[in-house]
């Protein structure tokens, strides 16, 4: 297990998540894509910490990433609920009001 290998796995995870976030039509599936991307960030940050600078303060960044993921999840579900309530739909294509 080396830094390069862990970062390679993280890159693969990020790419998979990016594919999901771009291609999916259902809001909750888009959120799943974003979650996979954040998952990759957690893995990469953990590897950086362990292989480059295992100082205790570096791990705090991982906790911040986890908190950001929680916020993303909670607000995403709230917006999905709002969308479902007002438009009876869970597709991104029905929420393109700001798109040109």
């Amino acid at each position, binding site marked *: 297990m080396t830094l390069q290998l862990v970062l390679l796995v993280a890159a693969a*995870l990020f*790419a998979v998540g990016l594919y999901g976030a771009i291609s*999916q039509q259902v809001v909750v599936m888009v959120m799943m894509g974003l*979650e996979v991307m954040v998952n990759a960030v957690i893995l990469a940050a953990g590897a950086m910490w362990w292989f480059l600078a295992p100082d205790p303060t570096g*791990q705090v960044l991982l*906790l911040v990433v986890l908190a950001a993921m*929680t916020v993303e999840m909670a607000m995403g579900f709230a917006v999905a609920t709002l969308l479902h309530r007002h438009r009876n739909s869970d597709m991104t294509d029905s929420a393109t009001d700001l798109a040109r």
Partner: protein
Amino acid sequence: MLVDVSFWVLGIVAVASAALVFVVDSMARATYALALSFIAVGFVLVLMQQNYVGVVTVLMMLMEMAIMAVYMVMYMGMNPALMPMSMVHDKRSALGVAVATFLVLGSGALFVDWPVRRGVPAPDVTAALGEALMGPQMLVMVVVSPVMVATIVGGVVLAAHRTRYDRFGDDLDQRPPRDPQRGGVGR
């Protein structure tokens, strides 16, 4: 040796189950595949001695995915285990972007001249993290806490069906409030 084998197994499980999320025909299975991916990443973190963050990732994501499965069933309005589905748009360009991103990030990971390790980990990494959070890094927790509270408030406001403006009017002076069913004794 054992660490290397575990890393390969967990890494392959993490990427494969993340890919399965967008392949399987069922929302429920997609949710559990994502949970598996998070669990694998959590255990890779444990392999790198980050026991606290790894276990928190596993526990948090298990709960989150359990909630997510319920949301899936609520919103999709169909049997989440039986209905084949493919709800994607512009699949080809999305695949192109994903592959290009992997090539750029992967080549960066392999070809960048990474610096050598500075310092050694504390004997008890979890205790050191706790001391950092309660000491020099406390500002992080002080900032994260109100953000979490704001998230709770924002989530409830966004998702609430009826708010006080629906009940009391735009100027909040409607008395009695407009409720679907009047409250109180003898209604």
